[in-house]
């Protein structure tokens, strides 16, 4: 069990400091209020995820997985509590700084329609490198290598509309990892895929996690994905009810 603060100091440095957790949250709450109806989507979540972990946030629909992931990714502001990404307190960042942090430290994979429909597979995959001003040769080299790795060689110039769901998710994963972020957040990445396709996507992410040490945090209720995780954090009604690591 490693829920709760682990006492490590907050590092504000840009370089990934050894021992700095990839994610740390402290007393995190997200409360929605609409027309007098109050929903506590995330309730007092404190957790630490170390660099290189392959973690699943599990729980029934409506348990707050997506909300927690969005708060951790800086897409939603928490109602209370703090979030550190790679040692940086993101709750203290401005919108602009958050955008920059997402670009530099995070990768996202969503359930579906992750890709920009007007760009080709290759352009989608290299998008964050473009945003970071990586020179063209390096961009091509990295993306080509990744495409080979994810079995998409030859499909570089296809638009997302001309790719299968599984191929689209592979490109989305490639885009999430291409800039070597410290953390990839994936919300139900396999929910729209058939068994064979999800298995191979999970294999791919597990391999990338092993090879590059990229931290993966999933929100899912896909049991295949849970079986592959080395740690499963269970949520019920927005609160952590179980946090299990396996060897």
């Amino acid at each position, binding site marked *: 069990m490693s829920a709760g603060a682990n006492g490590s100091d907050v590092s504000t440095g840009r370089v990934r400091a050894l021992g700095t957790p990839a994610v740390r949250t402290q007393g995190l709450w997200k409360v929605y209020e609409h027309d007098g109806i109050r929903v506590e989507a995330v309730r007092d979540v404190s957790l630490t995820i170390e660099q290189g972990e392959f973690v699943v946030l599990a729980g029934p629909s409506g348990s707050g997985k997506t909300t927690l992931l969005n708060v951790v990714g800086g*897409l939603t502001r928490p109602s209370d509590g703090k979030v550190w990404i790679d040692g940086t307190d993101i709750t203290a960042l401005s919108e602009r700084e958050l*955008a920059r942090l997402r670009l530099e430290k995070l990768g996202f994979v*969503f359930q579906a329609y992750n890709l*920009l429909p007007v760009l080709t597979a290759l352009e989608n995959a290299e998008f*964050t490198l473009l*945003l970071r001003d990586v020179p063209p040769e390096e961009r091509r080299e990295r993306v080509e290598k990744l495409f080979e790795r994810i079995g998409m060689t030859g499909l570089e110039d296809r638009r997302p509309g001309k790719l299968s769901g599984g191929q689209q998710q592979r490109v989305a994963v490639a885009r999430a990892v291409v800039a070597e972020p410290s953390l990839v957040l994936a919300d139900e990445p396999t929910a729209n895929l058939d068994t064979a396709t999800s298995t191979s996507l999970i294999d791919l992410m597990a391999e990338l996690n092993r090879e590059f040490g990229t931290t993966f945090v999933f929100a899912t209720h896909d049991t295949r994905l849970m079986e592959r995780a080395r740690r499963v954090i269970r949520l019920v009604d927005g609160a952590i009810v179980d946090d299990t690591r396996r060897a």
Partner: protein
Amino acid sequence: MSSRRRIRLRLALRNLSRQKRRSALSGSAMLLAMALLVFSRAIADGGHEEWIDAGVRMGDGHVSVQAPEYRTRRSLEYRLSPDVRAAVQDALRAPAISNRVVASAPRLTVQGLASSSQAALPVAVMGVDPELERSFSRLDEKLEEGRWLKPDDRLQAYVGARLASRLKLKEGSRFVLTAQDASGEITGQMVRVAGTFRSGIPEMDEGLLQIPLATAQEWLGVPGSVTSEAILLRDSRDTRPALRDLRSALAGWSDDAAVLGWRESMPELNAALRMDDWADYVFHLVLFVIAATAIVNTILMSVMYRTREFGVLRALGLERGEVGRVVFIEGMILTAISGVVGMALGAAVVWGFFRNGLDFSALWDMELEAAGVVIDPVIIPAFHWNQILLSLISILAIGSLSSVYPAWRATRIDVAEAMKFEE
């Protein structure tokens, strides 16, 4: 160009070409608006030029030189002496002025009475140089009966047709003119009808007659003097610089000579043109509102429809403002391309089909007279640079006005909301 800017531009361009049909549809509203704008402007500018030309030829020219008080007092007391006239001629010969001047005509105009055996009627008597006047007012082309004045005529008069018929005068009839001379005495002069004219302008046909300048000067006791020097320019848009140059050339004579532009000497015509321009501007505004509505609509629809895309962009690290800029650029490109193509189309239609004039005589079956000018029903379109510039500015204005709201909407998108997956 920074790579982020390049990305935004690429996204904007790709989005426009992805939604080709929609882009083309809303672009076509802009295209038609600009084509109509260019077309109507070319016709209006061409028509106005002809209107002004006709007006100033019959009237006092684009620019006229008169004694300062003449304009209000209309008395022979206020005339241009031979010295002043010589100075005016000198000024007109200066290169900067002369290359704008097409013709100039000296005129000695007095109010008087024309009496025949049948009647006596008030008239404007204009002493003119037959040769110079002919190329200026072209009143000889409006001949109804008889002939135009000849250089060696002495006691011949060219008389408005309505005036002649009221006085029961025919070609060769004699009648008497009376007016105040330079010393204030009433003086008479017998003349003979050389010809009559019908200009289509009631005031002229009922109340104007022309006699040789020398005859008028002798009769009224003002040898060598005139009441105005009328100057015709190549183009009405030369009026302002010509006025400026002439005024500075005649600065030393400011007590004796005032230089007037046609807008001052023909306020009615000026007001009529302004009115016409305003009517055009209202029409253009309507066109712009229609075009802008089509563009706002398209861009806004496309923003709504792409909520998820903007969510992805934000998740990837684009800032709010950058997402807005992608949308803004899209709107601007759509407007600019369709606007410029529309302008080219309008110009091509004008140039291709109506370069030699657009005949409106089917619409106006009678002679059209307005603000003291007879308008030729055949209008030669004109392209004026300032109008083209104004059109380009309007395109930018329409583009930014119609893109700013959709762009703002795009910045307001909530990422978490946008990324929700709806089955």
